[in-house]
C-alpha cells in the first residue's frame, strides 16, 4: 500500500514540477511577445490578450500542489537524508573569540550615526523616497 502510495506521490511530484516549469515558460513567452510590440507595448489590451490563453495554469498549479501537500501530510515521513556536506564538521573554534568589544563599538557607532541623521533631518530624505511610488522598484525604469 505504502509503496503504491509513494510511487504515486513521486509521479505527482514530477508532474507538478513539469506544470510549474511550463507555467514559467508560458509567462516568459507571453511577456516577450508583448515586449516585441514596440517601446511601450504594455496596455491593458495587449496584457489581457497575451495572458488569456494561459489563465487556467494557476488553478492547475494550485490543484496539483494541494494534492501533493495532502498526500505528503498523510505519508509517513522519510528520515532526513544528509547532504553531501554531512561529513563536514563545524569548526567550533571559529566561534570562540569574544565579540563583546566589537559589538559595543558597533552599537555605539550605530547610535551616533542615528542621532546625527535624525538631528540633521535625515528621516525626511527617507520619507521623500518611500512616500512616492518608486519607478525603479516598480520596473518603470
Amino acid at each position, binding site marked *: 500500500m505504502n509503496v503504491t502510495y509513494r510511487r504515486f506521490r513521486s509521479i505527482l*511530484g514530477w508532474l*507538478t514540477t513539469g506544470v*510549474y516549469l511550463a507555467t*514559467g515558460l508560458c509567462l516568459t513567452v507571453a*511577456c*516577450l511577445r*508583448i*515586449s516585441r510590440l*514596440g*517601446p*511601450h*507595448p*504594455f496596455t491593458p*489590451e495587449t*496584457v489581457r490578450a497575451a495572458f488569456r490563453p494561459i489563465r487556467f495554469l494557476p488553478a492547475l498549479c494550485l490543484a496539483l*500542489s494541494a494534492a501533493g*501537500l495532502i*498526500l505528503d501530510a*498523510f505519508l509517513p515521513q522519510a528520515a532526513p537524508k544528509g547532504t553531501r*556536506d*554531512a561529513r563536514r*564538521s*563545524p*569548526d*567550533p*573554534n*571559529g*566561534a570562540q573569540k569574544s*565579540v563583546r568589544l*566589537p*559589538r559595543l563599538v*558597533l*552599537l555605539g*557607532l*550605530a*547610535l551616533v*550615526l*542615528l542621532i*546625527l*541623521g*535624525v*538631528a*540633521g533631518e*535625515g528621516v*525626511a*530624505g*527617507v*520619507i521623500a*523616497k*518611500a*512616500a*512616492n*511610488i*518608486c*519607478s525603479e*522598484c*516598480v*520596473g*518603470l*525604469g
Partner: protein
Amino acid sequence: MNSIKQFLARIRPTKRRLAQLYFALLFNANLRGFAQGNIYRGQSKGLCVPGLNCYSCPGAVGACPLGSLQGAFSAGRSTLFYVGGILLLYGVLLGRTICGWLCPFGLIQELLHKLPTPKLKKSRVTRVLSLLKYILLAVFVFLIPIAYAFRDVPLPAFCKYICPAGTLEGGLGLLANRVNEGYLSMLGPIFTWKFLLLVSIVLGSIFVFRLFCRFLCPLGALLGLFNRVSVFGVKLEPASCVSCGKCVAACEMDIRTVGDRECISCGKCMAQCPTGAIRWKGVRKAGPSSDQRSPALRLGIGLLALAVLVGAVIYFRNKEDPSPAAGYETGERCPSASLALLSGGTVDPAAGGDVTLINFWGTWCSPCMRELPDFDRIASEYAGRVRVIAVHTALEAENAQGYVAEHFPQSPILFAVDSPGSPGAVTDAFYAALGGRGVYPYTVVLDRDGRIAGKYYAAVDYDTLRRAVEALLRGEEADPITTDAPLAHYRVRVTDERGAPIPDVRVQICAEVCLSAKTDADGCADFTAAAADYHAAVTVMPEGYALPTEQEEFPFEPGTQEVVIVLRSEAN
C-alpha cells in the same frame, strides 16, 4: 484518526512561521492600499523595517532599508547617516535573524519551497554561488548608486535592475489593481527584464531553498557580516560540540559553521545536535527556552502581539492619507521636483499657486515646434496666473538652447534643462511619474493646487489651451483630449547600402504626435501608436553614416506599416 492527527501535527505552524507571518502583515498593515491601488504616504514611511519589504508595495507602512540606502547616497549626508545607523543597529542587534524570522520576502520563498516537488540539495556549487550576493551588494547597492550620486543623478541600481521584491510587491502589487492600468503603457524593456527575473526567482525558489536569499540578496549579505557579533541569533557552544557535522547537514543554508554569515538563525539545527551544543545567544542552557515559560506568560505575549497587529491594521485603515497622491493619474498631485532652467534658477512644477502647463518637446519633433508659439501666447496673455514650463527632451538636447535663443528670446515660457547628468535636470523618473517619454509632444496641465487636471498625448492648439486654462482659473475641470483612434504597430528599419542592419540609431515617427525610439540589433525600431499617416526620420545620424539623398522624411506607404531607411556609409 491517527493519520488525521498526524496531518494536523504536520500542518501546525512553527513559532518561527507565525513570527514571519506576523511581521509580513505588520510591515504591510496598510491593507487599504491594496484595495485602492495606492501606497501609504504617512510619517511611518520614514522608518526602515528590518527585512526586504518594498516601500512601493501598496501595503507597506515603512521603508525598505536597501532602497533607502541606495537613495541615501544622493539624498544628503544626514539621510546617509540615518539609514547607515539603522542598518548598523539592525545588524548588531539581530544580524540575519531578520532573514529567518522577520523578512517577508524570505517567508514568500520558504512557502514556495513547501510546494511538493523534488528539491535541489545544497552543494559546493551553491556555496560558491552564495558569494554572488556580495558582488551584487558591492556593485548594485554601493558602486553604481555612489558613482551616479557624484553626478547628482539618483540611480538605485539594485531596485531598478534586479530587485524581485520590488517587481512583485511594488510592480505587480500596484498593477494588479485596475485603477493603475495607466501605468501599463509606461512599462518598457526594464519591466520585461525584471518580470522575467522575478518569474525565474519564484520558480527557482520552488526547487531551491531560499534561492534569492542564498545567492542574490544584498541585504542578507550585509546582515550576514554582523552574524558573529549580533546580540540575538544562534550560537555554537564549542565545549559541548563533538564535531559530528549533523547541524551542517541538516541546515538548508550554505553554512560552514552554525552562526556564520550564511546562518539565518532559524534554529532547525538545534534539534539535530546530539549534545545540545547549539543554543540561542543569551540563553544559558540549550533547548527552546520559550517552552519553559509559564503558559500564562506565553498567552500574554501572544495576545499583546495580536493586539499590536490588529491595532496597526485598524490605525492604517482609518488614517487619512496625509498628503494627496503624487503621480501620474488625473487628480493626483504632480511629483515635486526642482527643475533647473536654461535661464538660471529652478522651478518646482508642483509648487501650485498658478495654473501650470508642462510641455515636453524636442527640436526634432515638428508638431512640438508648431505648437510652441501657442504656449508662448498663453504664457504672455495669462502672465501672473499661468506658468508654462517647457522641457526639452533629454534625448538630444544640444541644440535646444540655440533654438530657444533664436525663436523665443523674450518668452515668458520657463525652459527647463533636460540633459542627464546636469544638476537639476529633468530625470527619467520625473517623466515616468508623469507618464511621459516616448510620445511627443506631451502636455500635462496642473490646477492651482499642483494636481494633474489633464494630459494631452497630442499637439494642442491655442484654443484648446485657452479653454483648459480658463476652466481651471474658474475652478472647473479641464477637458483633456483623448484619442479613440485604434492602435497599430509601425516598424522603422535602418540598414546600410548592403542591407546590413544598423543598431542603436535614434529614429522617430511623426503625424500629429511624434514617437521616438532606438533601433535594436536587427536595425528595427517598433512603435505602437494611434493609427495615422506617419512619416519616419532619423533623429540623430549615427557616426560615419549619412542619408544618400536630400530626402529626410520617409512616409509609410498607405497600407504598409514598415519603412526602410538606407544610410550611406561615409567610409565608401
